[in-house]
């Protein structure tokens, strides 16, 4: 998997469009999901900026973990975006947007009985930022703790701890939801409702702090 990715990177650096397409298809879902947790509804815009920069800077990539390289670009773009947004008097509500998404996804996924991707991401996004980022980088992007640490500018141990705390928190959240879905699925849909205040402050504000 990783060697396949590295081959594609080399080919794309030599100008192979199919290789670049492969990179996009492989990496974009994870980047978009990670960015959704960071910037909410603007994730697609930030992802476009990210790919613009990846295209431009691809020749300068000299090896190492390509996933980490791309996700670092994505994270920088997201931070720029949040900074820009804070200058404007807009009120970003990414968690809210995620909750809405989760609602839609939940009904769509009901038939499958499993947790939808949107709902899962929405749940992860309710974690404290450090934990959410650690979980997303590890599980969704697929970085190991060392690479994730480099992306976040923290030690691998700190990332592992944050991810571990995040998982425990998620397990607790799931547990809280689970009985409702088993006992009375029609009465109380087990999803974050748009109107319900989310535990913890909105993600964006903490991400900057």
């Amino acid at each position: 998997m990783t060697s396949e990715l590295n081959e594609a990177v080399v080919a794309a650096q030599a100008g192979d469009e199919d290789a670049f397409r492969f990179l996009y298809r492989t990496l974009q879902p994870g980047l978009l999901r990670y960015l959704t947790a960071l910037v909410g509804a603007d994730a697609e815009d930030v992802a476009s900026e990210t790919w613009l920069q990846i295209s431009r800077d691809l020749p300068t990539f000299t090896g190492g973990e390509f996933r980490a390289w791309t996700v670092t670009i994505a994270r920088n773009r997201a931070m720029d975006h949040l900074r820009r947004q804070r200058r404007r008097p807009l009120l970003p509500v990414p968690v809210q947007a995620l909750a809405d998404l989760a609602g839609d996804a939940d009904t769509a996924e009901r038939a499958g009985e499993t947790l939808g991707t949107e709902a899962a991401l929405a749940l992860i996004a309710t974690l404290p930022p450090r934990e959410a980022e650690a979980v997303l980088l590890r599980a969704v992007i697929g970085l190991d703790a060392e690479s994730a640490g480099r992306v976040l500018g923290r030690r691998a141990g700190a990332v592992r701890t944050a991810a571990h705390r995040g998982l425990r928190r998620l397990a607790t959240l799931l547990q809280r939801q689970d009985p409702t879905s088993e006992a009375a699925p029609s009465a109380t849909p087990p999803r974050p409702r748009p109107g319900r205040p989310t535990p913890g402050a909105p993600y964006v504000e903490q991400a900057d702090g």
Partner: protein
Amino acid sequence: MSFRQPDRPDLPADRAASDRLLDSARHGRAGDDGRPADPLADLLAAAAAPARPGELAGEEAALAAFRAARAAPATPPARAPRRRRRIGAVAWIGAVAATATAGVAVAAVGLDRADEPAPAPAPSTASADPGASGPTTAGPTAPGPAGAPSAPGGGTATPGSAGPSTSAGAAPPQTPGVTPGAGRSGAAANLPGLCRAYLAKPAAQRAKALTTPGFAPLVAAAGDAAEVDAFCRRLVPDPAATPAARPTHTGRPASKATPTAGTDTAAED
């Protein structure tokens, strides 16, 4: 299911257990038969699930960016981009405005040229061309979605700006025979020409000249009749002052850019 379990069943015991869960997230859901072994593993697998169609919507845009980056490797941002871009935009606006009134403008410029000893054409063309040709090579793709509109603009502007340089360079400026050439490449050509004609007029006649249809594209490009003066001085260096300065740095790019512009025009025709 949850009733079978005591109150804290699914919590990963330590960091190593969490690591294993996180590592296996991208290997798919635990139970493919629809019976997830562990809700937490299931959640992580769902979060890391394969791409859904909507997530790859930007694929063509990303590829376009990739092609653009290949076509124009990293040099453009290094060179003074500010002024060029502005001139490029001006040329584009001018091209649009001039195209709308092409016939009239061409005729008018032809007449004006016949009157005035037209100064050599190089300067404005030269400065506009690099700006225009940058976007053109990178054109279909370079700035991604946002830049797309400017690419056709650059294309239009390039044949346009080629007009005066070919006409004035090849033919003696005073012959009306210039007009066919200029007409072929479109009135977009003549924004610099219009400026030169305008600047060559006595100051007293300028305001009046701007009310004629022939100068309408110029007024449109400048935004306002009152702006034409400044606009033209930006676009065309003062003809009286520049004979020495012109050939040195602007003459060559113009002659270099012209052939490509010419083929563009031919291709379009």
